[in-house]
């Protein structure tokens, strides 16, 4: 399936303030960004700066107060199987076995019959063949997150939105899954927007890294990672980039404290 470009122009989003429902608090302020077709971009920023909110807008689950979101040249109005979203919580359906969870997208689109063999393929990819007939509460947190990843991937979305999909994994599985996600990304040329808290992960995976700052959420800086793939996690360039980003994040955090006061 072809990848699509993603363009976001001056999008703002506010929510009712929890302490006073009559006023609204700006969560995203004038966000503009664009991803070329097939690009892999990471989004990092402190907790609560609106990363998940932005992904929900792109997925079409919420609509912005103002601004414009486009996939290719189509405006985003509602959710669509062409834009996959892996949520921060795995949110597996507890009443379905792992296999049925993973094939849910095929069932929802009514294409299970033609693509049944892909289910096994994706279960193998995330290493859950043995648990095919287990129910989600038998899975560990990391296994559940892998199942959720497979569930989104099976639709071959043109744009894949990942909200800390590897957060619950141990270091080794995490690195293996990073390579798997990269392999999938290269094989399917999906446009990918990856939210992460892990700077190493952002540098290892992405073409560009966007750093967000909170209250209201905005994109502070965009950094191009000009390293050749496969990247070495301990190379000099890698480590220097890591230091720069840490610095920027620190500043982003401080500026938010200043804003608040």
């Amino acid at each position: 399936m072809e990848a699509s470009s993603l363009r976001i122009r001056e999008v703002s989003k506010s929510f009712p303030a929890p302490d006073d429902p009559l006023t609204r608090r700006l969560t995203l302020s004038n966000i503009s960004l664009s991803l070329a077709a097939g690009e892999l971009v990471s989004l990092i920023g402190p907790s609560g700066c609106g990363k998940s909110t932005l992904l929900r807008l792109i997925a079409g689950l919420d609509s912005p107060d103002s601004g414009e979101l486009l996939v290719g040249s189509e405006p985003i109005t509602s959710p669509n199987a062409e834009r996959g979203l892996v949520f921060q919580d795995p949110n597996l359906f507890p009443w379905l076995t792992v296999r049925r969870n993973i094939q849910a997208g095929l069932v929802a689109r009514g294409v299970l019959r033609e693509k049944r063999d892909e289910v096994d393929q994706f279960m193998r990819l995330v290493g859950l063949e043995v648990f095919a007939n287990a129910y989600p509460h038998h899975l560990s947190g990391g296994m559940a997150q892998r199942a959720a990843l497979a569930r989104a991937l099976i639709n071959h979305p043109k744009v894949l939105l990942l909200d800390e999909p590897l957060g619950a994994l141990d270091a080794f599985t995490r690195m293996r899954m990073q390579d798997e996600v990269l392999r999938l990304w290269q094989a399917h040329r999906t446009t990918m927007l990856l939210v992460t808290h892990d700077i190493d992960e952002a540098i290892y995976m992405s073409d560009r890294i966007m750093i967000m700052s909170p209250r209201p959420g905005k994109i502070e800086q965009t950094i191009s990672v000009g390293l050749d793939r496969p990247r070495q996690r301990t190379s000099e360039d890698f480590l220097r980039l890591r230091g720069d980003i840490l610095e920027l994040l620190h500043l982003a955090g401080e500026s938010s404290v200043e804003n608040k006061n």
Partner: protein
Amino acid sequence: MRPEKHNSRPEISPPESTTQLPSAPTHANVDAIERMERGSELGWRAHLAVPLAALVALAIHLLFSKRAPAVETHSYTLLFYEIVGVSIVLSIAQRFWMPLRSWMRHMCPILTAAILLLGLWDIVTFGFQLLPMPYFPGPAAVLRSLINDRVLLLDSTWHSLALLLSGYTVGVLVGLISGICIGWSTPIRYWGMPLLKVVGPIPATAWIPLAMVVSPSAVVSAAGLIALAVWFPVTMLTASGISNTRASYLDVARTLGAGRAYLVFRVAIPAAIPNIFIGLFMGLGASFLTLVVAESVGVKSGLGWYVSWAQGWAEYGKVYAALIIMAAFFSTLMTLLFKLRDHVLVWQKGVIKW
């Protein structure tokens, strides 16, 4: 009785005795192991509790039965000979057959208690006639009514079953449909919920006078009332289950390309199933009540009718016989519904206490 005895003994046995048991089953859970331990300590005596209790009850009965004509007590005595015989055979058989042994370990205390209670009932009523007489016959008299009137009782049970199931099925189907609509669609909830809140809480039996006038046949109106009694809890709990579906499940499904049918039938309804089953259980209870009331007021058949008919003739043995059938009948239906729930909700095993 037995467990107390065990507990009062000083604990000398080393804890590892459980693992040394040669017959320890591989699938045993903690309960089973505990029971094993107790059984091995008490030895054969534990298995003889049931036959012993039966012998006691039999002795009590034989003691008093001399004063009564033999026909009245014959079948009860026979029944107890059978119980004694079967339980002795079982206690021997369990030595050779593992599943039977664990079943008997489990059932032994409750069966013993039940048999002793029968003996107590015998003493209080048939023996010393401590309770006013036509109203409290002894177990032998009830058994005799049960046997003598078996054709009519069976027929009544059959009529009750047919009436109950037709009313329950209609009530559940309509309740599920209205519950799903009210739970899912906001406009339907706006109009439907007030109606549900006003009409629903009226006990179905309160409609009896109206139902008698409206419907040409008492059976049809009784089925309608049962359906009404079932409809309310099923609708209420289905609606609340559907509208309480976690939004994130619906969000996930929508990003996977789900249309409305998938969202309703494959997300909202499965998420609501635990609630729906609560509604089904409540509806079943309400249907029993409505069935018995409707049968004793208008319908000229069924167990409810049989009870009031036997009461009219002051044949209290028959009343109790019908009550026993009713208890067995209703608890069988409840058990079946529990089995269905366990089957449908396997995925909850481990999520909730179960």
